[in-house]
């Protein structure tokens, strides 16, 4: 590719993809783990026979991890359709039905999150899904619609499809008419005839059933994820206004103006601490030096968080563009991506993006014909959580142990190799091109006072639809968990939401209506963090969760300072004792005291925030600690030492499945469980067809 000049970028405006028909297969780590690569192969083979003109394109992930592998199809005569759980086995069948038969496959459609207001053309498909508890009525309504359509002689014009997900939860039976995406909720049996008569035949919208709430999600960071091919620069240029923001910055703006625009946008660091991005850049810029560095922190170590991985894998050029703009703003000529080695796919795609950008003259000397020079390199992390902390990260890039050093001096004054360095998170960089393209004021129009823009969360744990969510700041936790992600699995009660990973806190059910923003979360004793959000239900023991996170921090402590090294160890011993039912009432004040010491006296962020999960759980769930300490009972029936497994002889049908499945032989021939042998692995509970086996508090014995 020859070097690009500003003139080359000017005529490129967003235009439809060159192939008018395509199949996009979402290939990110999650998708590949679910078999997306084989799906891609199967689809390619099927297309060769079916319709050679159809392009099969690899793209990044849209974020709906629960439905991996995900495939999107655009073909003549059909609305654009997103399919989930497209395994290699069903891929050819699905494609043939869609392209040739103009039919969608039941139980695979992920409905559009657009909400139409009017029926424009003839309805060709009708999606139906019971979003209430149990999802029992979907098939019944599908049948009712088909019967009604048959009666009206429309059965061969409108196909009724059971959807996999429709983006609305707990609103009874939901129906979506395609094309147009007019969506009706709480549909009852008498409404079936009305919908067919008025909406399908007369093309009138039924106002009483219409779902008017727009989707709570706003996609800025994830705008290109699942749309462009992450391995092709040309795709990014043609479809995503790629490097237009860089052109604007280099040709039309001074570095000061770029920083001023960032100030207007109100963007704050998305790595968790929320330091204003413009300020960080400005502080680095004003240092008098011959060399400044810019670093992209992609050491996403929080367990249960995968936002940065997804963005790097799905849209690496946006992050790179953001980094080049940052380098221009602070006057740097060298940048580093610090990526976890555990993310090989992300590393490979960023490497390719850098390579392509270099060939196109977007990296290197005289970028876009200006006198601005910048190059970027990759450095791999090696599995140390503390390296997400900026001083430790710098030490690691320098090839040393990732030990943190005291701040100040901050990296913006003395950073990599002693030079001023600006370290920004992946998500922060991904926001930058959008801000420069559409203006800081536009960006600031999203979100709330103090926390502008959107935030990506990886919602996982006991949630129905584990996925990436991007919402404007100020959206409540309840909206994220229930409206976007469909609430808790198996209809259980939600107990708490954990945010911010091992440095964050636990937010109880009662506080879920808090709008998400940097300050509000801090008031609740948690932090925004990088965006991991883990949902816990009533079967999760809070003590156990606190122990899990603390153990993580103890493992990851570098051992340099005593409060973190010794305090963490002592606390984990105490928690271990409590979860075994051997705690004493004195333990709780002791825990609080150690927490305070660690917070105040630890050297770096890891040690200062390690007690957060313990403090937050003590704050909201002290009763549960007291249950463990005083009554030696675990209400969640989670702490193995405090529960027994019991078999209800009255329910038992003597099928011997439990005996067969017990890995340690704890179930005797006359169906009595030996709790001394039992490892509480739940195997028997899961296989029992009569639910005769259950966990019970130990004191009952």
């Amino acid at each position, binding site marked *: 590719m020859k070097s690009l000049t500003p003139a080359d970028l000017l005529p490129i405006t967003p235009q439809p993809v060159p192939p008018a028909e395509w199949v996009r297969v979402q290939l990110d*780590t*999650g998708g*590949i*783990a*679910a*078999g997306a690569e084989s799906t891609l192969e199967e689809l390619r083979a099927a297309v060769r026979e079916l319709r050679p003109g159809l392009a099969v394109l690899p793209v990044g992930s849209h974020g*709906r*991890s*629960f*439905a*991996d592998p995900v495939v999107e199809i655009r073909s003549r005569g059909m609305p654009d359709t997103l399919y989930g*759980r497209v*395994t290699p086995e069903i891929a050819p069948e699905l494609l043939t039905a869609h392209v040739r038969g103009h039919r969608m496959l039941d139980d695979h459609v992920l409905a559009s999150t657009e909400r139409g207001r009017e029926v424009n053309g003839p309805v060709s498909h009708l999606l139906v899904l019971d979003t209430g508890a149990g999802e029992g009525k979907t098939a019944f309504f599908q049948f009712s619609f088909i019967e009604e359509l048959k009666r009206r002689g429309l059965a061969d014009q409108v196909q009724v499809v059971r959807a996999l997900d429709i983006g609305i939860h707990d609103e009874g039976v939901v129906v979506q008419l395609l094309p147009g995406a007019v969506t009706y909720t709480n549909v009852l049996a008498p409404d079936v005839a009305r919908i067919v008569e008025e909406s399908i035949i007369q093309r009138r919208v039924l106002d009483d059933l219409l779902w008017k709430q727009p989707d709570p999600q706003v996609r800025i960071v994830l705008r290109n994820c699942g749309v462009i091919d992450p391995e092709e620069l040309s795709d990014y240029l043609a479809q995503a206004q790629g490097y237009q923001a860089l052109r604007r910055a280099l040709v039309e703006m001074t570095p000061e103006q770029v920083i001023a625009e960032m100030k207007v946008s109100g963007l704050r660091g998305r790595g968790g601490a929320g330091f204003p991005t413009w300020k960080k850049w400005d502080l680095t810029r004003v240092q008098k030096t011959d060399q400044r560095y810019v670093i992209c922190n992609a050491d996403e*170590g*929080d*367990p*249960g*968080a*995968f936002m940065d*991985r997804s963005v790097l894998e799905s849209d690496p050029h946006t992050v790179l563009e953001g980094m080049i703009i940052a380098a221009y703003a602070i006057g740097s000529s060298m940048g580093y991506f610090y990526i976890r*080695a*555990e*993310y090989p796919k992300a590393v490979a795609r960023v490497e390719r993006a850098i390579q392509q950008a270099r060939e196109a003259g977007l990296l290197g000397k005289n970028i876009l014909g200006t006198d601005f020079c910048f190059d970027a*390199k990759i*450095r*791999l*992390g*090696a*599995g*140390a*959580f503390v390296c997400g902390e900026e001083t430790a990260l710098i030490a690691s890039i*320098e*090839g*040393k*142990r*990732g030990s943190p050093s005291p701040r100040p001096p901050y990296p913006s004054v003395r950073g990599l*190799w002693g030079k001023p360095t600006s370290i920004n998170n992946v998500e922060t960089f991904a926001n930058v091109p959008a801000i420069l393209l559409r203006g800081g004021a536009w960006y600031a129009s999203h979100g709330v006072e103090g926390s502008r823009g959107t935030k990506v969360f*990886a919602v*996982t*744990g*006991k949630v129905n639809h*584990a996925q990436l969510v991007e919402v404007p700041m100020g959206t409540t936790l309840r909206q994220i968990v229930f409206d976007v992600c469909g609430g808790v699995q198996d209809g259980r009660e939600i107990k708490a939401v*954990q945010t911010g*990973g091992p440095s964050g806190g636990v937010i109880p059910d009662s506080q879920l209506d808090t709008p998400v923003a940097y300050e509000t979360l801090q008031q609740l004793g948690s932090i925004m963090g990088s965006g*991991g959000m*883990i949902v*816990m239900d009533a079967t*999760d023991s809070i003590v156990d*969760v606190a122990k*899990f996170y603390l153990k*993580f921090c103890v493992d990851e402590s570098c051992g340099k300072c005593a409060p973190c090294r010794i305090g963490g160890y002592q606390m984990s011993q105490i928690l271990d004792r409590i979860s075994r039912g051997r705690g004493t009432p004195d333990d709780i004040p002791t825990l609080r005291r150690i927490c305070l010491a660690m917070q105040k006296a630890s050297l770096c962020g890891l040690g200062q925030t390690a007690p957060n999960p313990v403090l937050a759980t003590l704050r909201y769930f002290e009763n549960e600690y007291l249950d463990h300490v005083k009554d030696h009972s675990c209400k969640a029936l989670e702490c193995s030492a405090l529960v027994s497994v019991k078999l209800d002889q009255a329910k038992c049908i003597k099928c011997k499945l439990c005996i067969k*499945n017990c*890995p*340690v032989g704890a179930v005797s021939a006359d169906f009595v469980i030996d709790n001394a042998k039992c*490892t509480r*692995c*739940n*195997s028997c509970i*899961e*296989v029992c067809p009569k639910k005769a086996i259950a966990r019970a508090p130990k004191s009952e014995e």
Partner: protein
Amino acid sequence: MTQRPHDPSAATEHPRESWKNDEAALLTMLEELEKRHGYIPHQISDEVGRVLEVRLERLRRIQTKLESSVRRDVQTQVARWKAEEGNLIMILHAIQNQHGYVPREVAMELSRELSVKLARIYEVITFYHYFKLQPPGKHNVTVCNGTACYLKGAGGLLAEIRNHLGVGEGQTTPDREFHVEVVRCIGCCGMSPAMVCDGKTHGRLKPTDVSGILAQMKTPAAAPAAAKEVHA
């Protein structure tokens, strides 16, 4: 030192020629002689000594060959990263990718090449979880213990693996067949609990699935039906 070709006539004198290349045969022969004579005749011990010297020399050459191969290897890596500052971690990544772990002799060679003290290199290797000092097993089982997997029962999977293999986190079975590793997060939280077996990710697992997967790893062709589909 030049290697003198061994006199062929000496070899034909002895009925069993194989002793020159086979230590076990040599030892048996010497024991027989000792039994027969009560001692080993000095003509024989001289002859054996000569043969041993030749063999030692050959082995030494093999050793130098290996060493120079290690050195060349390390030199290529170092040359690739020489110009960069702070290259140690990137070189260690390259070494681990090649060997599956960081062998001691390679680390020693690296220390010479980079003029960095061996202790400095080990300081880095032992700090980061990613670098290993032991060779991995033939089959690798990696259990994800990220928060999502933890809440959904990664502990149960680990216990089940321990039941089957007798080893836990970070251990290798004595026959080097299986190596069990626990990692923070493999980024497949949508399919938790998950584990990676020889590069293939299995998701939404129950403890009862473990035995089938392990059996399948041992004999890949024999039990395809036992594999759990990730979309189940």
